């Protein structure tokens, strides 16, 4: 019950700077009781407060994952992007299906880009070898698709995801390198070509 005054301060904040400060204090408490409130803040359309809330959720790590998956907001794409960003950074494989779905087909580009990046850096140590093989196959296939997203920033994020996947999944490395080489030469956006080139550099 030690965090209840901090939760109250978040609920009663009456200005953007006060909300950000209150969320920062709640996040710093690193208490699992703060999780539902921190997730709520993701939907407040306040970037400062959302950054602080994501930070708090990432610090708490895997204990925040079930609630994040349960409370993910189907209607507010801002909140969904922040939640995916938190899941991506925690890297818990229980978020796999949520991240796959978001990267492939969320209508908001900020959600697709957060998920695409996160898919490359899941915490494999939590899975058996069979589970790892299945997950990496799904991720590889989805990220190869996402390389064709109409938005440059989503393709950029897919490259970041593929780069990380290639470092962990030897089986896919040469196919990833081939794809990155194509993107480095042919993508319409200079930033995407450069990021592919960076991913290919030793």
């Amino acid at each position, binding site marked *: 019950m030690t965090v209840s005054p901090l939760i109250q301060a978040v609920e009663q904040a009456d200005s953007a700077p006060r909300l950000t400060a209150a969320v920062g204090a709640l996040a710093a408490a690193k208490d699992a009781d703060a999780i539902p409130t921190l997730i709520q803040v993701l939907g407040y359309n306040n970037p*400062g407060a959302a950054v602080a809330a994501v930070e708090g959720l990432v610090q708490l790590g895997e204990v925040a994952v079930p609630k994040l998956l349960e409370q993910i907001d189907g209607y507010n794409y801002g909140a969904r992007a922040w939640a995916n960003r938190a899941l991506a950074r925690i890297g818990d494989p229980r978020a796999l299906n949520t991240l796959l779905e978001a990267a492939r087909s969320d209508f908001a580009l900020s959600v697709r*880009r957060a998920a695409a990046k996160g898919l490359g850096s899941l915490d494999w140590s939590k899975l058996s070898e069979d589970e790892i093989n299945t997950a990496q196959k799904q991720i590889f296939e989805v990220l190869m698709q996402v390389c064709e997203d109409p938005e440059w920033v989503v393709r*950029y*994020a897919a490259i*970041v995801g593929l780069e990380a996947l290639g470092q962990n999944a030897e089986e896919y490395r040469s196919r990833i390198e081939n794809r990155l080489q194509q993107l480095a030469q042919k993508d319409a956006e*200079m*930033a995407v070509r*450069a990021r592919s080139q*960076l991913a290919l*550099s030793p």
Partner: protein
Amino acid sequence: MLPNPDSKATTSSSVGENSSDDGVMSVADAIANLQQTADTSLRYYAAWWLGKFRVSTPEAIAALLTALEDESDRAPDGGYPLRRNAARALGKLDDPRIVPALIAHLEDPDFYVREAAAQSLEMQGRSQAIPPLLKLLEGGVEAAQPVPGKPHLTEPYEAIIEALGTLNAIEAITAIEPFLGHSVAKVKYAAARAMYQLTQKDEYGQQLIAALRDPNLQLRRSALMDLGAVGYLKAADAIAGAFAENSLKLISLKGLLEQALNAENPDAVTLSEDSIHLMQLMDGLL
């Protein structure tokens, strides 16, 4: 001609014989809609449409140039809405008649037509627009006062100054510099942006970085776009740390990255440290 107070009320959904039934407009529909005079809202939309879909056929240009001289569509404030849209559309199109017509409307009685003409001349990128744009800065900061009863200054200074910067109007430096001290923040930052483009001096880039810390979110956003547009590499970390949406920060950093990549030796096999640093910052914002 007298303003027609009813003209804006006809927001009819009927599209007449000039449009197909499925709601998809063809180029011929758009030109016909722009040429008819019965329904001003159809004309207004058609002008926007031709610009949006970059229709640079001689017929489209001719219809837009006629719309730019329109006298019939009048706003309650006395302005010319159709002219404003025609001027905006022409900026996106390609034809030798466009620049002289836009230059003539830098002296339009409607402030917003002058503003659209200046922005479109910036997009057209022709140096022949420089002397007439520069002429609008005559009288300096003293003349750049609010117009009583209107939400704007005597001239569209922000658009004029930004256009001069983009057109690389070195001869405009002494005229633009005093606007760095203008009391309207958007005008001041437009001057900083242009001065950086024209001189590449650090002090002006630093003023844009200062705008990233402005308490007003709109000004912070506009500073992000300005820094991306001019590609001021020293702003990289300030952009990444600004209080604004990640999406805008990514677009801004992309502008810097393009600047850094363009400055690199095209034969270089490896990326520069600047480029790599920019991409690391971008990775962190995804």
